[in-house]
């Protein structure tokens, strides 16, 4: 029995130290936060928040701009982060690039919470789920942090604006035209997507479906299946193989995801399949598969420049933190050598900034692009 009593005492002692230790450390930090907030800027109106403890660091040594990617090892996200970092550092800020431990919204919540504690000035997030970051991002905005989405949008309530790589409709139209062109105008085709809840993927797929149904030009095309490779190479390979087995007459696979298209390209090319591929892919990963003739699996594909997406997101963060824009429709800002951009209404009720139309990679230009990204 004494053993139990002692363990209970130890627990009490432990929690007491926790409270005392943190309390001592916490108090001066809070005091510090109050001091510079008077000099640091009148714009930090709501810095007297729970999370205000960390703002003193950023106020003294330049502003801190954070970007949260979808997952580690996503080459597309990494290029975006590169562009983001370059612009932020060129403008005298500190860039924090954080990858969640898994490609889930749950993991991103932890990262965002940590960034709130650090008192960063802005957060750009590529959302793994449109809705599931709302609680964390609302908290961030309440703490005075400027929140914007990049690449894959959060819902309208959890962001100030969104750096959209290309308008959803433009992408849907471009991909639909590519499928039409490669298939010769008729036959079966399928989609290999990322995860079933990836916001951008679903928006593009919906746009493609809408375009296909609205124009009789596409009447002879039959979308037989939408598969989800979860942006995991192994799973994308498996679903592509299953598609070929289940639909021997399949003419075109459209993979609007960089991981999916690379996996599908390898499967199709290795098997010498007559089925062709298009979609959105990284030139460096796809160079071996893009070419004319039957020995190549992909005649051409599209992408925008992810480095530019990251740079646009950085300029948005800078403009938000400087107070040049607040994410309302009609706001305009300068994005360095990329020119001037305007905030426009997004389909989900929020606002967005559109980078431009997707860029076509074909056998004529793939070799010059493959070394770039």
């Amino acid at each position, binding site marked *: 029995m*004494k053993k139990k009593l002692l363990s209970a005492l*130890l627990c009490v002692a432990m929690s007491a*130290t926790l409270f005392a230790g943190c309390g001592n450390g*916490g108090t001066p930090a*809070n005091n510090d936060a109050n001091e510079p907030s008077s000099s640091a800027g009148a714009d930090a109106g709501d810095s007297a928040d729970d999370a205000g403890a960390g703002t003193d660091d950023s106020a003294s040594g330049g502003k801190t701009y954070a970007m949260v990617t979808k997952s580690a090892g996503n080459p597309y996200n990494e290029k975006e982060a590169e562009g983001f970092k370059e612009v932020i550092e060129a403008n005298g800020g500190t860039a924090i690039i954080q*990858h969640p431990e898994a490609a889930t919204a*749950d993991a991103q919540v932890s990262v965002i919470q940590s960034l709130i504690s650090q008192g960063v000035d802005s957060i750009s997030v590529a959302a793994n*789920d449109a*809705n599931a970051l709302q609680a964390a991002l609302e908290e961030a905005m309440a703490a005075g942090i400027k929140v914007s989405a990049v690449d894959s949008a959060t819902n309208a309530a959890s962001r100030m604006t969104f750096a959209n790589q290309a308008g959803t409709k433009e992408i849907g139209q471009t991909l639909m035209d590519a499928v039409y062109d490669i298939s010769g105008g008729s036959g079966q085709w399928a989609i290999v997507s990322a995860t079933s809840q990836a916001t951008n993927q679903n928006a593009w797929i919906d746009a493609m479906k809408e375009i296909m149904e609205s124009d009789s030009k596409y009447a002879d095309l039959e979308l037989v299946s939408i598969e989800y490779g979860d942006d995991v190479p192994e799973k994308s390979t498996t679903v592509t193989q299953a598609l070929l087995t289940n639909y021997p007459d399949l003419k075109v696979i459209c993979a609007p995801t960089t991981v999916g298209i690379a996996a599908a390209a390898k499967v199709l090319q290795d098997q010498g399949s007559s089925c062709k591929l298009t979609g959105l892919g990284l030139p460096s990963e796809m160079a071996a598969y893009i070419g004319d003739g039957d020995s190549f699996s992909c005649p051409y594909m599209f992408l925008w420049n992810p480095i530019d997406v990251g740079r646009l997101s950085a300029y948005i963060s800078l403009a938000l933190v400087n107070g040049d824009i607040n994410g309302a429709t009609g706001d305009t800002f300068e994005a360095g050598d990329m020119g001037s951009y305007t905030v426009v209404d997004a389909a989900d009720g929020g606002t967005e900034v559109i980078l431009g139309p997707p860029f076509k990679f074909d056998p004529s230009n793939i070799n010059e692009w493959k070394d770039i990204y």
Partner: protein
Amino acid sequence: MAGKSGRTISATPENVWKKQIFSWEGILVVIFLAVIVLCKLLSPNYTFVNVLREMPKYLTEIFLLFPMAYILMLGEIDISVGSIVCLSATAGCLISNAGVPFGAAAVLTLLVGAACGAVNGLILVKFPELPSMIITLGTQIVFRGIAEIVLGSGGSVSPTNMDGYRMIAGKIGPFPYIFFLVIISAVIFAVVSAKMKYGRSLYAIGSNRRTAFYSGIRVNKVIFIAYTLMGLFAGIAGLFLTSATYAANTTTGKGFEMDAIAMAVFGGIATTGGKGRMVGGVISAFIIICLRIGLGQINMNSQLILVIIGILLICAVLLPNITGSLRLKKRD
């Protein structure tokens, strides 16, 4: 432990002191303090307020630890809990979106969780020859599969009326409600496992199921209750996770089962059954949470954080084995 009067009572109490300090729980307390000091040194933002503010999402996993510890004490395992969290959170959002008031929706969320747990328990009790690992692996796929079918290609649902969820995510001062709930549950689970008949029968079954059965312990009932509790608490975790994210999706709760098992094993609760104490599990849970928050605040690569926790876990399993064998040698 000499009394205030100066009399030395006997040698035994001193022995208890030593035993306590060198017990696994004692070591855990030291590790916990070391983690706090380390994080404090590493991050200027590691303040009491910030740590508590970041905690709610992590605390949802502790709800899974409590019944998971019971199941491990039984010598069984349940790897379907992450999926139960997902299914109950999804059900909760959908029920609340159907216009059911929040209170009722919350209760139904817990019931969905408890029902899933009861399914696990029922299968295990009816087919005792089947390993729990395999059964719960199956239900893990089934439960998440149901959620995926219900959620469809959109893959995500958020409650249209979030007032209730915002309410349970509320705070008293810097303390989120969930913190109190975790502490109260921890005390109840610890007392039940240490003092009550049900708790002691967990250890008895975990040590030797046949002996326990012939001693008159209703083994099936104990197992069924443990798994149903597991489901119920997965439902609670699902409810609070929804309040920390405002949505449920197909990846909600993914990997939670392994986190809960890791917390328990790190706390000295052996997967072979019959060993360990709830106190250890709770301390180790806070060690892992505080470490994650601290290392997260210095923007350490999140994969590296997982590696560190993995190494800690291996050490935690090795250490008692090494010291245990040393002690045995001494006795010989």
